[in-house]
């Protein structure tokens, strides 16, 4: 919705196509006009101001841009925004409720699963996807599930512990 104070945007330059898409992001429908070539990560970061999703390598290798797409972890730097039309996304901003952190967020803090923090949103979302299908993963299962996400600071050991911490808490809460 346009606020009273928004400057009227110039129409797209001649020959630049746009397409209207509606995407559910963290539970709310967002409707935007995008160039078909716009990458989903850029729509989230620049268009929707959800800067928790990071752009790391632009080539699907590092996983800093991982979000959940209809519940599945995907790399948003190599998906087009138009491909998300009609789908439901979850980003790091959707993890915590207003009053409390998600157990995965707590786990990362408790077990010191992050240092510079750049890979953390992608790591946490990949971990969430794992815990949704496997509530009691082994260390190897966690390492495999996170192997699409690179971290340069931690050496992964504390990330694994963070996910184990979260899994334990989520199991306790489920019972």
């Amino acid at each position, binding site marked *: 919705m346009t606020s009273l104070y928004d400057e009227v945007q110039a129409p797209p*330059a*001649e020959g*630049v196509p746009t397409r209207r898409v509606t995407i559910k992001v963290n539970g709310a429908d967002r409707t935007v006009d995008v*160039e078909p*070539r*716009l990458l989903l990560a850029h729509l989230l*970061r*620049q268009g929707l*101001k*959800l*800067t*928790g*999703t*990071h*752009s*790391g*390598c*632009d*080539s699907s*290798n*590092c996983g*800093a841009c991982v979000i959940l797409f209809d519940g599945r972890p995907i790399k948003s730097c190599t998906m087009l925004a138009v491909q998300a039309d009609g789908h439901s996304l979850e*980003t*790091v*901003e959707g*993890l*915590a409720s207003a009053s409390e*952190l998600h157990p995965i*967020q707590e786990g*990362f*803090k*408790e077990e*010191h699963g*992050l*240092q*510079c*923090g*750049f*890979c*953390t*949103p992608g790591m*946490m979302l990949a971990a969430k996807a794992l815990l949704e299908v496997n509530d009691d993963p082994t260390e190897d299962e*966690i*390492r*495999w599930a*996170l*192997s*699409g*996400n*690179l*971290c*340069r*600071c*931690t*050496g*992964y*050991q*504390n*990330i*694994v512990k963070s996910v184990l911490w979260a899994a334990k808490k989520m199991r306790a809460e489920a019972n």
Partner: protein
Amino acid sequence: MALDEIKIGGLGASRRRVEDNRFIRGKGNYVDDIVLPGMLHMELLRSPLAHARIKSIDVSKAYEIPGVRLVLTGEMMAARNLAWMPTLSYDTQAVLATDKVRFQGQEVAAVIADDPYIAKDACQAIVVEYEQLPAIVNPFQAMESDSVVIRDDKENQPGNKIFDWEIGDKAATDKAFAEADVVSKMELHYPRSHPSPMETCGSIADFNRATGKLTVYMTSQAPHIVRAAVAMVAELPEHMIRIVSPDLGGGFGNKVPIYPGYVVAILASILTEVPVKWIEDKTGNLISTGFGRDVYLQGEMALRKDGKMLGMRMKTISDHGAFYADAQPSKFKIGLMHSAFAAYDLPAAHLESVGYYTNKAPGGVAYRCSFRVTEAMFFQERMVHAAANDLGMDQAEFRRMNLVKDDMFPYRTAFGFLTDSGQYGKCLDIGMKAIGYDTYKAEQAEARSRGKLLGIGISTMTEPLGAGNSREYDILGIKMFDSAELRVHMTGKAILRTGAMNQGQGHQTTWAQIVAHELGIPADDVTVEEGDTDTAPFGMGTYASRSTPVAGAAVAMVARKIRAKARKIAAHLLEVSEEDIEWELGRFYVRSNKERGVTIQDCALAAYSNMPDGMEPGLENNAYYDPPNLTWPFAAYFVKVEVDAETGVWDVLKVVAVDDCGVRINPMIVEAQIMGGLTEAYAMASMQYQTYDDQGNMIGANYMDYLLPTAWETPGFELHEVVTPCPHHPIGAKGVGECATVAGPAAFVNAVVDALGHLGVRNIDMPMMPNRVYEALTTGKDISGMPPVMMGD
């Protein structure tokens, strides 16, 4: 009653990190997250060729694309005297190329446009006509080539040699070799590697024409150095420049230098009068910014037949790329390479170093190490491994015999460093026990009988962390001290600022713990800020593991100044003389009556409401700390591997790390730093390297070619601790962030070479990829140099 230091988050508390609260919510503030009103976007056009003369640049097609606001070329930079800039090693570097391009990925032009997609489109529309020149891709070609001179822009630069440098006592070393029973040799290459933080470099330059002030948000590990450099290069008054480093997504040395993109963005903002954002892509980062290593090392050790080390000759030949842009103390041409063998009682040593230009990316940054210490310690531990084998001695016993003993400190090394503390033998013992060293020889023999190849690698070292002191260490003449400023508010809460710059180390958490230790103010009551040159005191930034040794010391010292003033206030409040006052954590009391006391918070309130007559109000101060010496942590790493004889694949069975970094402020954070460093050591040993083909095309310019270990490959780590406090640091701490990256690689290589030792293999250069290990184990020959480049069609 004194406070419980752990409860208030003081020294030794594994306090959970303050900065995590924003990062786990996706609320970090990295440079690309910052949006300024009216901001334009910049993209760089890079050279596809390693060495070529620029014949012409046509930007007209770029301007035809709607949304393009400005295109900058070298010629336009030159018109403003900005085509070249100084490097951190007293050389010059092209900002945008004018005459030639000298490495693949060099910055040639810049487009400033309404959005980054348009800027990228317009870069593709710029037409550059090149005349290709032969590329020099290693220092051996550089030393042979008289006809191809890379730096023909420089006067008095006949060939491609940058420096020829030596240190040590040549005569004493020659004498040691004359008296030696055994001479052992080692020759190896430490491949080019890239720090590759997850976040690339970037900046937003915001020049405000109305106020004349330039604000630059940028990925810098050393914002104050940038301010000084911008003042010099751009000829802007220093007080009108504000550099702000926001959250950094990792640094590891990559974000110390000043890169062309920053300079071009500044000029673009001055010309367009709106903020200009430049965010490097991953390839841009890997192909053009500060790399580490790329040094050929050779040497020989003089030994007595009982195993005593007598002397060491070392030679390095280093590849610096097209511009000598090493970030290092200016006195030393090859960083602190001469810290090699500092842990050993070595009577004589001599080092010769030669550096060359090549048509490769410039940089030579200290990638998670204190100025070439990684190369020094890697060579040291590979040399020690070979020497023990040549003598037929056990690896651990050879080290034990030659390591500096506890009662020998302070110890002057053969190259002139002064090491001051440590318990090297104790660290070795702990590591041997943890890895199961006493049963290992039998285990190895038994495994070999089943065709399995087991190996244990040891790496022991002390390294110089925490530059200065300022007598010996400076960068571009600026002395390497650091600073802290502490303001205690009237309710006893406080704000602390330092000249260091966090990039994941957790300064917001640990600096507050030092304040808690010194003043008894709970760490939760202390805000920590860094990175904004308008508010932070002048400091040299964070690299070379110098934050805790230098800025951390300044934090302790400023807190002590605050305590000294608070003591006077306490005497006033308690109506006794200052001499009758005692301190316990968080509280002053009357010596004769411990019940009568005032807290630090009482003193803070009084500093604003009830100060003694004649006392200046307020409770704040600053401290500039110039350390008397470097700090010397010790590390003993043990790696156990099993090599598959049929494929050359090697699996890490166990990693044991024993670290003595003195007093640990936050053990949780220290341990995590060590694990991160061990992972980078494993990375370099196993897969992570950059190389170039003979045309100068970089192999390793994206994450499909430049392999970083994931959670799947990375081994687990077992950590042990020894504490020998640093004798000169106010809280006894030593640097630690880099120990594992520095000492780690040799432990992995020594392990694989040990597994293959019975086959006659003496050396396998990193990266130890399975095909290289396989070749070594099937031929019994050493593997040297870079893996061959596989060229596609």
